[in-house]
């Protein structure tokens, strides 16, 4: 607005504030000087509003649209899948360890049966199978 009122900077600002106020009477907008003033101002303001606010808003909207519509969901689902897979891996690891342990126990049992067979010749478990043969 400085380009319009060089000597007194507040005049245009004050007038624009009055015109932008919703409570201002509608009659003022049909006055020829006011319409002319608005048209003159609008030529200067419109490109600045488009570049300064409207285009960033469009970018902002597009980003949020992508984030809410696609990225958030896929990221959180992926995160849940990762957690599930790590839990499954941990469980499988536990099972594997338990299996190894059972294997070791049965082998140890067989060796113990072999080392000390019962006097009657009957034995139990894996040791029985090995002792029988």
């Amino acid at each position: 607005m400085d380009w319009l009122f060089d000597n007194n900077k507040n005049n245009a600002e004050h007038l624009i504030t009055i015109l932008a106020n919703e409570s201002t009477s509608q009659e003022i907008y049909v006055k020829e000087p006011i319409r002319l003033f608005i048209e003159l101002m609008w030529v200067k303001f419109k490109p600045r509003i488009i570049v300064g606010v409207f285009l960033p808003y469009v970018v902002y909207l597009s980003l949020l649209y992508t984030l809410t519509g696609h990225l958030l969901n896929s990221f959180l689902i992926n995160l849940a899948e990762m957690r599930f897979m790590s839990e499954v891996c941990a469980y499988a690891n536990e099972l594997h360890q338990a299996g190894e342990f059972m294997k070791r126990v049965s082998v140890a049992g067989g060796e113990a049966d072999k080392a000390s067979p019962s006097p009657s010749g009957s034995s139990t478990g894996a040791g029985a199978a090995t002792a029988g043969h």
Partner: protein
Amino acid sequence: MKLSAEHDAHRTQTLVFVGIALCLISYFGFIELRQLRQSGFSYFYDTWNFIDMSSWALNFSFMSMFFLCVVLREEYFQREVILTIGSWGMFLMWFKVFYWFRLFSSYAYYVRLIMQTISDSRKFMILVVIILISFGNFIYVADATNYG
């Protein structure tokens, strides 16, 4: 391994998007705060300012919650909660796009026409809502007997 690589790619992409969005949120937050400082309490007299502020607050909450989840790789907030907040924020943003079309003279007439129509039919709408609530309540209470 494939899942982990996919997750890392997702994370990087998401972090870039969230970073740019946070910059823009700060920019629009700055604009709103400047308006609030200039207008004072009269800022709240305009409905569009309410929409702007609500949209900003919802989007900021959504982005912060999501950002925490992305950075810490932990689902601190339920997916449903984040999505609900995000959907409301998006709704208000699309609503504002409608208002933005006033910038262009060929659309401005229609935007003003629709807004004026809604404003004029506000009292009729209130009556319609009351009628709908009364019938809805009647059916809800009468139907409740079917379910004990």
